[in-house]
């Protein structure tokens, strides 16, 4: 590659995005070219802002106590994996800590019967029972409707939430099915956000008993007015801002992309 082509790769170099062969050539240029070095410095400064664009997730409270516990250990080695290792002390019999596992046949059989019974109850509760939840009924109808638009919510980015958002074929309404949300406290709520080009509005405030779900939420809003749909945890009566989330963002689905 010529010099100009290599200079064009410097932004990607600042992001660690180059393939190996490209990186070798760019580094060779950087070793001898002051303009390339200056350009890299600029792009590295720009790349340094990217962590600030990450949605903020509150660090779990237990991390502080965990850090204190790690600091109090006799030696803290950075090379050690963070995963805890079982501590042993010389001269102490490990088997004294072992609780014999019950092997009594009757206990085993009783446990098996209990498991079967629980499974049977779960089946009866979640099996072919017909829902009387109108939003769930509509959700199932929209799933089957020709031309409906579906958006999957997968765990990983902001929370473990999973679900699906289904818009009717005419785009006039949708139902959100969501589960595996983080639990809230008695002073909190789940708030849905409908985000358009010009403004954001609340899609409802929900006080569910826990985050397990699934929960079905009707979105009576045309798809062509939406850019994104999301959910956050807010105070009990909703975001104090009214038209914007303030709490932990749980998920967001960009609608415009898939249209």
């Amino acid at each position, binding site marked *: 590659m010529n010099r100009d082509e290599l200079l064009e790769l410097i932004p990607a170099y600042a992001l660690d995005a180059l393939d190996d062969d490209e990186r070798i050539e760019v580094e060779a240029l950087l070793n001898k070219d002051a303009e390339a070095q200056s350009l890299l410095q*600029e792009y590295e400064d720009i790349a*340094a802002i990217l*962590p600030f*664009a990450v949605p*903020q997730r509150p660090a779990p409270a237990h991390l502080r106590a965990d*850090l204190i516990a790690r600091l109090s250990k006799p030696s803290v080695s950075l090379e050690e994996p963070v*995963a805890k290792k079982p501590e042993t002390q010389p001269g102490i019999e490990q088997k004294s800590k072992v609780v014999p596992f019950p092997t009594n046949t009757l206990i085993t059989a009783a446990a098996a019967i209990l498991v079967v019974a629980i499974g049977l109850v779960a089946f009866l509760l979640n099996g072919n029972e017909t829902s009387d939840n109108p939003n769930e009924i509509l959700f199932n109808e929209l799933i089957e409707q020709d031309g409906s638009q579906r958006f999957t919510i997968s765990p*990983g*980015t902001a929370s473990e939430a999973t679900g699906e958002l289904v818009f009717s074929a005419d785009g006039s309404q949708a139902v959100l099915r969501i589960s595996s949300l983080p639990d809230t406290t008695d002073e909190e709520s789940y708030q849905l956000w409908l985000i358009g080009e010009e403004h954001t509005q609340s899609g409802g405030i929900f006080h569910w008993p826990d985050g397990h779900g699934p929960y079905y939420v009707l979105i009576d809003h045309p798809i062509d007015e939406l850019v994104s749909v999301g959910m956050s945890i807010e105070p009990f009566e909703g975001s104090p801002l009214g038209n914007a989330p303030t709490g932990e963002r749980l998920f*967001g689905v960009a609608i415009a992309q898939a249209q």
Partner: protein
Amino acid sequence: MSETPIKSLLQQIQSGSEEALLQLHDEFATPVYSVAYRVLGNSQDAEEVTQDVFLKLWDKAQSFDPDKGKFTSWLLTIARRSAIDRLRKRERREPPDNSISMDAAPYLWETTPGGEEISDLQRSLIGVLGELPDDQRNAIYLSYFHDMSHSDIAAHLNKPLGTVKSHIRLGMQKLRSIWNQQPDTRIDSERR
């Protein structure tokens, strides 16, 4: 938290003050955890990386050079690199489909970076980042937070390699044009 108390805390950490480390933890655990989570996609790994970062800070507080940049940038760079190291150690996985949906529109979600640490210029750049075409922003995020090369991104997005290269180049050039329009184009005034 401004740079002066941070410098003081770092000196105290070098002297063995756990309280000083905990003060920095209270201030920066969330942004560190957020970056780690963005890279790794799950809370367990992100927690462990966050722990690693602060233990590294405990052990190597003296390695921060205030002449080379601001503390937050330095710390979050360590967080990102630690997270990527961890990512490389486990089986490479595709980012969840909807992570792109969420992160393709970060401007839709209010971010709360460290108040005094982030300049108006940085805020402007974050705003411009949100306004980039989705393809450019996605390519930049995939390379920076998912440790993907040009070829990796092209394969993941099923796009030509040249297209991916253009997305990254054009996106970063646009950010640079904003960067160069400002009278003070450095994150911190101490850098030359």
